[in-house]
C-alpha cells in the first residue's frame, strides 16, 4: 500500500469529477446559507435561521477546502468529501423517509401490529430452533444442517407473514404515493447523487491514488460507526440541552417565537422575602406586600416569629417537599438495603431467590405500582390500615392497654401524604440498592475478615471496621444515584394523589411543578429555568456526597 500507484484513466476521471462536484456542492450550500435571509425559505424563529445558515456556511467552506485538497491529491480532501457527502446523504434519507410519512406511519402500524405479532413469534421460534445447534454442538452433523435450513425457512416464512399481516404492501404503496411530490423527488435525487459520490470515493483505487494510510481506514470507520449514535445524540440530547439553557432566558410558550427576557425567570424563582413577626400568628399582609409575595412558611420564635414569603410560593413549597422526600426516601431505601445485603451475603442456600424477589419492585412500572399502593393505602378498606389495626389490637391485648387506632387517612391528610409517597419510593428502590451493595460486598477480600477474626473482633466490630469503610465507593454510588432519582420524583405523586399536588400542596414536587408550568400553563421558558435550578440542586448534592466520599475513602489502601 505504501508504493504510489500510477493513476489509471478512470480514477483520474473520478477525482476530476469529484473536484467539480465539490465546487457545485459549495455553490448549493452557499445558496442555502442565504436562503432563509432573503425569503426563499421561511423558518419560524431566529435561532433556527442562525442554526441552518451556520451549518450550511460551514459546509460551503469545508467543500471548497475539500476541492482544493483534492486538486493537490491530498488524502484530507477525501476525508472532507466523504464527511460532507455522508451528512448530506443522511439528511436526504431522513427527508425521504419523512416525506414518505414513515415516521408518522408508525401510528398506523400500531393498529395492525397486533395481528402480526403471532407471526413474529413464529419467526423468533424459528431462530431458536436454529440456535439449538449451538447448545448441542456434538450432535449429528446432517441433522443440524437440515435443522438450520428448516429454521431459516421458518424465520423467512414467519417474517413474510408478519409483513403481510401488518399491511406492509399497503404501507409501501402509501410511502411511494407520498413520495411523488417535488420535495420527495429532490430528496431521492439527493440520495442517488450523494450515494454515488460516496461510492466513488470509497473505491480502493481512489483511496490508493490519494495515498490512504492504514490509520485513515480507522478514522473513516470510526466516525462512520459512531455517526448514527453521535448524530442522534447531538439532535436529541446535546442540542436540546443547549436549547433548554436558552429557553430559560425566554418567555417561550412552545408555539410562538420566544422573546428574550434575560434573568426574569430566575429572578422570579429567587424573589423571596424574610420578615420578622411581632406575634406568631400575625398576618402576612402586615409585613410583606401580598400583591407580590405569598407566604410559604413561618417559624415561631418565642413571642415573635419569622415569615418566609416568596413571589412564587409553589416553587419553594415544591423545593421543600422534594428535599423532604429525598431526606427520608434515600435513607429508608439505602439503610435497609445495606443491612439486607449483609444478610444476603451469607453463603446459605436460597440467597439468589431472595435477591430476585427483592429486585422485583424495581422493574415494575411506577404507574402500576402506584395504583396498587393507592388501594393499599385506602383508609377504610386498605390493607395497611388493617395491619395497623391488627397490630394495635394485639398490642392492647398483650399489655392490656388502650392505644387508639389512628385510622390514618394516608393520601388525603396533608401530614401523611408525602410520607405515603416516600414509602412507595423506598420500597421500590430498596431491592436494586441491595443488589448493588451485595456486589460491593463480594468485592471485599475475605482475608480482611479472617485477619480481624484472628485479632478477636466481633461481627459488629467487623461491620463498622471493615465492611462500611470498604463499601464506601459503593455507598457513594448508591446514595448519589438514589438521590438523583429521588430529586426527580414525579410519577408516584402524579398517580397516587388526586389532585397531584396533594392536600394543601403537601406533595407538589419540583418535577411536578415543572410539568404544571411547562405543560399545563405552557410557560415553557419558566419551566426550563426550574429545570436548571433542579439541576444545580442535584449537582450540589452529588458534589457534597462526592466530597464526603473522598474524605472517608482514606481507608482504601
Amino acid at each position, binding site marked *: 500500500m505504501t508504493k504510489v500507484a500510477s493513476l489509471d484513466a478512470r480514477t483520474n476521471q473520478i477525482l476530476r469529477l469529484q473536484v467539480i462536484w465539490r465546487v457545485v456542492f459549495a455553490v448549493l450550500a452557499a445558496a442555502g446559507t442565504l436562503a432563509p435571509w432573503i425569503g426563499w425559505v421561511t423558518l419560524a424563529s431566529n435561532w*433556527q435561521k442562525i442554526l441552518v445558515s451556520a451549518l450550511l456556511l460551514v459546509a460551503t467552506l469545508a467543500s471548497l477546502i475539500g476541492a482544493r485538497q483534492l486538486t493537490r491529491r491530498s488524502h484530507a480532501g477525501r476525508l472532507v468529501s466523504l464527511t460532507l457527502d455522508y451528512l448530506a446523504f443522511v439528511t436526504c434519507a431522513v427527508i425521504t423517509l419523512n416525506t414518505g410519512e414513515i*415516521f408518522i406511519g*408508525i*401510528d398506523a402500524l*400500531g393498529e395492525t401490529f*397486533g395481528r402480526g405479532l403471532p407471526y413474529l413469534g413464529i419467526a423468533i421460534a424459528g431462530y431458536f430452533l436454529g440456535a439449538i445447534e449451538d447448545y448441542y454442538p456434538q450432535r449429528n452433523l446432517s441433522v443440524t444442517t437440515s435443522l438450520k435450513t428448516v429454521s431459516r425457512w421458518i424465520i423467512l416464512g414467519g417474517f413474510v407473514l408478519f409483513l403481510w399481516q401488518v399491511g406492509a404492501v399497503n404501507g409501501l404503496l402509501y410511502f411511494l404515493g407520498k413520495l411523488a411530490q417535488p420535495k420527495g423527488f429532490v430528496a431521492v435525487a439527493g440520495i442517488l447523487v450523494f450515494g454515488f459520490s460516496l461510492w466513488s470515493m470509497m473505491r480502493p483505487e481512489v483511496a490508493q491514488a490519494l495515498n490512504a494510510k492504514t*490509520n485513515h481506514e480507522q478514522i473513516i*470507520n*470510526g*466516525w462512520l*460507526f*459512531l455517526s*448514527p*449514535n*453521535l448524530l442522534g445524540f447531538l*439532535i*436529541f*440530547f446535546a*442540542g*436540546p*440541552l443547549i*436549547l*433548554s439553557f436558552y*429557553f430559560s432566558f425566554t418567555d*417561550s410558550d*412552545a408555539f410562538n417565537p420566544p422573546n428574550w427576557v434575560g434573568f426574569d425567570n430566575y429572578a422570579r424563582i429567587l424573589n423571596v422575602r424574610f420578615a420578622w413577626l411581632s406575634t406568631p400568628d400575625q398576618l402576612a399582609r402586615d409585613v410583606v406586600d401580598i400583591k407580590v409575595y405569598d407566604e410559604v412558611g413561618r417559624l415561631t420564635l418565642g413571642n415573635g416569629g419569622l415569615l418566609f414569603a416568596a413571589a412564587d410560593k409553589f416553587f419553594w413549597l415544591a423545593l421543600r417537599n422534594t428535599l423532604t422526600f429525598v431526606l427520608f426516601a434515600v435513607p429508608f431505601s439505602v439503610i435497609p438495603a445495606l443491612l*439486607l445485603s449483609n444478610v444476603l451475603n451469607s453463603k*446459605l442456600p436460597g440467597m439468589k431467590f*431472595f*435477591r*430476585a424477589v*427483592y429486585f*422485583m419492585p424495581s*422493574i415494575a*412500572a*411506577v*404507574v*402500576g*405500582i402506584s*395504583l*396498587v*399502593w393507592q*388501594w393499599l393505602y385506602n383508609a377504610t378498606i386498605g*390493607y395497611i390500615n*388493617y395491619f395497623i389495626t391488627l397490630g394495635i389490637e394485639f398490642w392492647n391485648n398483650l399489655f392490656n392497654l388502650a392505644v387508639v387506632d389512628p385510622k390514618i387517612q394516608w393520601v388525603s391528610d396533608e401530614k401523611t401524604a408525602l410520607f405515603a409517597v416516600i414509602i412507595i419510593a423506598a*420500597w421500590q428502590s*430498596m431491592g436494586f440498592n441491595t443488589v448493588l451493595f451485595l*456486589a*460491593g460486598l463480594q*468485592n471485599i477480600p475475605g482475608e480482611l475478615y479472617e485477619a480481624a477474626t484472628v485479632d478477636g473482633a466481633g461481627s459488629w466490630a467487623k461491620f463498622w471496621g471493615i465492611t462500611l469503610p470498604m463499601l464506601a465507593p*459503593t455507598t457513594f*454510588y448508591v446514595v448519589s444515584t438514589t438521590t438523583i432519582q429521588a*430529586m426527580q420524583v414525579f410519577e408516584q405523586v*402524579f398517580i397516587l394523589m388526586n389532585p397531584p399536588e396533594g392536600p394543601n400542596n403537601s406533595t407538589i414536587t419540583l418535577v411536578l411543578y415543572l*410539568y404544571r408550568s411547562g*405543560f399545563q400553563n405552557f410557560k*415553557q421558558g419558566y419551566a*426550563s429555568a426550574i429545570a*436548571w435550578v433542579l*439541576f444545580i440542586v442535584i449537582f450540589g448534592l452529588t458534589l457534597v456526597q462526592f466530597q464526603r466520599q473522598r474524605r472517608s475513602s482514606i481507608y482504601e489502601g
Partner: protein
Amino acid sequence: MNPQSYKLRRFLGNFAIYFVLSFFALVMIFPFLYMLATSFKIPSDTFRYPPRMLPRDPVEITVTGYGKPLPLYYVEVDGVQKEFALAQSNIKVGTYAPADNLNATVERYLSEVKPTGGAMNPQSVTINGEETKLFDVELDGQVIPMILVSQTTVGEFIDPQNPEIKVYRNVRLSDPVENISWHPENYQQVVELNNMSRALTNTALVTILVVLGQLVTSVFGGYAFARLKFPGRDTVFVFYLGTIMIPFVMLIVPLYQLMVLIGWTDRLAALIIPWIFTAYGTFLMRQHFITFPKEIEEAALLDGASRFQILKDILIPASVPALATQATFTFLYAWNSFFWPLVIINVGNEKNHVLTLALNVLRGRASDTPNLILAGAAIAIIPPLIVFILGQRFFVESVASSGVKG
C-alpha cells in the same frame, strides 16, 4: 463451647437470617399478590372490611317454590350455625310496648299493625311530655294499644332443604356463605373498557423498536469507542460520560418543542426515535468490547475482513449476554416510561396511548372498581416481570457489576 451448643447457635442464627429475609420478601411481594388477587375479584368483594386476599363469590341456591336462586347466609338457629337462604329482605319489624309497661315488648311486622282508631283518626298518648302514636297490637288473641319503641329491618331466612322453616335475622349482621372463585373476565372487561389492547400493542411496538434501535446504535458506537482510533474520539467519549448523570427532565421542554417543530406531537414516533440514541448504552457496550482480546480481531483484519464483518461475525455472537442485559434494561425503561408519553401524547388521542397512559385514564374511569384498575395494572406489570424472570441471570449480575465498575 461444646459442639451441641455451637450447632444450636448456628441453627438459631440461620433461623434468624431466614426470618428476616422472609419478612422482607413478604413486604416486597405482598403488593404484587394483592394486585393479582384483587384483579380476579368481583367489585363488591373488593370493598369488604376486613380485607381478604382470595377472591370470593356469594353462594346462591335454588329453593323449590322460589323462582330466582337465593343467596345463602350463615344463620344461628337454636344455638347451632346453619346455612339458610335469604328469601325476602327489607322486612320492617317494629318493637311495641304498652304505654304503661315499656319493658313488656313484643315484635310485629310493621305492615300487620294498624294505628289505633284507624288511619283517619289516629290516637296518641303522651309519654314524658312527648306525644306518641298508639297502635293496635294483637297479643294472645287480644288487641292492646301499644306504642312503637323501635323498628329494624330484617330478612326472612329459610332452610333450603325445608322451606317451611323460617327465621328472621338482620341481613347486614349475617355472614354470607361464600366460595373462592376467580374472575378472569375482569381482564376481558378492562381491555374492552379502556382500549387496553391497542395500548398493549402500541407499548409492544414502541418497546421492540426502541430496544432494537438502541442495540444497533450502541453496538456500533461502543465498538468505535473501544476499538477504533480516530482523532476526536476521546473528546467525544468524555462528553458522553459527562452527560450520563444529566437528568431527563432537563430535556423535556426543548425536546417537546423539537417534536412540535417536526410535527411529532401525538405520534408514536416521538416515543421511539429520540430514545434509540443513548450515551449510557454506548458506554456499557464500550466497556464490554474493550475487554475482548484484540488478537482475534487483528487476525481477521489480516485475512481481509472488514470492520463490519468483524463486528457481525466475531464480536456480536460473543457478546450475547451483554446484549441481552442491555436489551432487558432498555425493555424495562421503554415499557415503563410515563412522563414523556404523558407530555407528548394527548389524553384525547387514545389510539396512540401506551399502557402507562391507558392506566392513567383508567384510574379516573374505573375509580369505583378496584378490581378493574388492578387488572389493568397487572397487564402493565406482568410482561416486564416475565422478561425479568427469563433474563434474571444476566440482568441482576450485570446490575451488580456495572454499579461498581462504572
